[in-house]
């Protein structure tokens, strides 16, 4: 009865020096579902996506973990499981500057479907129309640098869709864009999720953006999921002090001008990761036991939880 899903279990990514950036990260997203992952830069959210694709960032490698696509098991570190595609943050650097859009899309389609060139090209036009490009014929001949930022990001999405994925991993796909374009791209992704039953994993540092698209939100801090739950619940009553701070930073339409600006301090460097709560140095109210080893939350379970030992003692909802 449960829809088929993408499941990542026990993902462990280390630097060349052996320092773990991610230790034992797990998450799950079902077809037609959108999982949002929120966290500061350096929290490991992008690394998690890249590692899931088997393309960890330069200088890092996947040491352990399995990726299940439906009931197919993909060993950790093997490149690009079929059925999963990724949209990268900066479409300016992530599209090959020497490739015309049409050839790039058609070659990708041909590779994945074994289609003829003609069929692949007509599929490429269809993909460009799907991502909302007018005049697809004209765009087919364009090089990436000839497109505007918004069109380029659409092209990047079309490229990812050219592999006929069931799951789409989106790494800050709207961060480089202005607010209007951001909304259009979000709408486009949501439409693909609805129409094609895509499972989306949407990563962003901006909880406001994530809340617009995600059914379930996971909050990451220093390589771990510290809070997870249905979007409305997490936004409505965050439990972890870090999640509370993120939510408090959302602009409040009822009380303009009361925006909580930032959390003091910076997230720890992976070389300084401890077994205990990694947020305690910046936490407003650390208590006893914060040094006790924590496992991090299992992101395959979408019920609302946090891994703060003292979640009941500090005020829920918006910190003032």
């Amino acid at each position, binding site marked *: 009865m449960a829809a088929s899903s993408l499941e990542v279990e026990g993902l462990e990514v280390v630097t060349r020096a052996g320092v773990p950036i991610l230790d034992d990260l797990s998450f799950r997203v079902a077809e037609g579902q959108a999982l949002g992952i929120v966290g500061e830069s350096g929290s490991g959210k992008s690394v998690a996506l890249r590692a899931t694709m088997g393309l960890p960032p330069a200088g890092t490698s996947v040491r352990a973990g399995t990726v299940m696509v439906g009931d197919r098991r993909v060993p950790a570190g093997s490149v690009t499981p079929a059925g999963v595609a990724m949209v*990268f943050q*900066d479409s300016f*650097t992530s599209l090959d*500057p020497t490739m015309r859009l049409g050839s790039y899309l058609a070659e*990708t389609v041909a*590779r994945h479907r074994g289609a003829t060139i003609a069929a692949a090209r007509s599929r490429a036009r269809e993909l460009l129309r799907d991502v909302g490009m007018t005049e697809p014929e004209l765009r087919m001949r364009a090089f990436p*640098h000839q497109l505007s930022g918004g069109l380029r990001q659409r092209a990047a999405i079309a490229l990812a869709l050219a592999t006929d994925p069931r799951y789409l991993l989106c790494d800050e796909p709207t961060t480089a864009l202005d607010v209007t374009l951001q909304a259009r791209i979000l709408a486009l992704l949501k439409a693909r999720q609805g129409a094609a039953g895509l499972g989306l994993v949407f990563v962003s540092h901006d909880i406001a953006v994530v809340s617009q698209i995600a059914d379930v939100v996971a909050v990451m801090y220093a390589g771990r999921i510290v809070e997870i739950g249905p979007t409305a619940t997490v936004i409505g009553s965050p439990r972890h002090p870090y999640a509370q701070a993120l939510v408090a930073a959302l602009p409040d339409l009822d009380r303009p001008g009361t925006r909580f600006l930032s959390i003091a301090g910076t997230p720890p460097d992976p070389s300084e990761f401890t077994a205990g709560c990694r947020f305690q140095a910046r936490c407003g109210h650390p208590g006893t036991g914060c040094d006790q080893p924590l496992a991090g939350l299992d992101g395959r379970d979408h019920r609302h939880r946090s891994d703060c030992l003292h979640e009941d003692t500090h005020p829920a909802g918006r910190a003032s």
Partner: protein
Amino acid sequence: MEGSGWRLLGRRLLQVLPVLGLLLVVVFALQALIPGDPARAIAGPRATEAQVAHVRADLGLDETVTTRFASYVGRLAGGDLGESNRSDVPVTQIIGQRVGVTLSLLLGGLVASVLLAGPAALVLALRPRSRAAWVIERVLSVAINLPSFWVGLMLATVVGLRAGLLPVGGLEPGLGGHLRSYLLPCLTIGISLSPFLARSAATSLREVVASDYVVTARSVGASGTFLFRRHLLRNALPPTVTLLGFQAGALLFGTVIVEQTFALPGLGAEMITAAAQRDFPVVQGLTLVFGLGIIVFNLLADVAVSVLDPRTRTA
């Protein structure tokens, strides 16, 4: 080539003008460096007093520098590069007889460099931590310091004289003989140029391999030779060709060295002989030709880059 391609070429030609101007000035100014009486030096040791006087009048040494420069450029425009003071043969004729050898060496040397540098660059860029890369890095750092006249002589001794495999001096008759005669000289040029080429190609390739767009290409399933051909090579080539353009001078001087070492009748050997015998008109004319050669080589490199890299075409 599309319309924008022609416009680019036109722009490049405009950029070349100052280089051309400076080249003419430098070549013209060489005269001023001749110690003693330039007219006598140009006329050569065999010249009679009357001939020297004639040359002096031709040079217009009593005129202002600008007038002399103008008449020099005027003569050049008319295709007059002067005459050798050893043989009285016009410099243009000498060039015509010898340019073929030099062009063959340029082409052959370029091919040899690419054949030697290509595999080395691939190993350095794609397997940077391998034992092979370590060895190549060491070999390159020695090769970069090899004087090519000496490499040429040693190759000639080992491959040519000792093993008797290949000719080591002059051109053998016939097409096959020509090809065999060019083999060692081209290899010598290749050895001296390939270290630069291998290092710069490896650097560009490394940047491409680490780039976001290659990660994207791999994420949509590109791999193996397809990834290499469609994404890595096409992006790594333009910067490598640009850097090759910077090496044009070294490449050209490489032909001079091997022509002298292997006794090949090209422009470079002629230049060296003329320089040693103080045949000043020939030195001056050949310096100009070599300068023009570099300018053309750089233009070709620019055009090649613009064909290879779409961003430079419509930027």
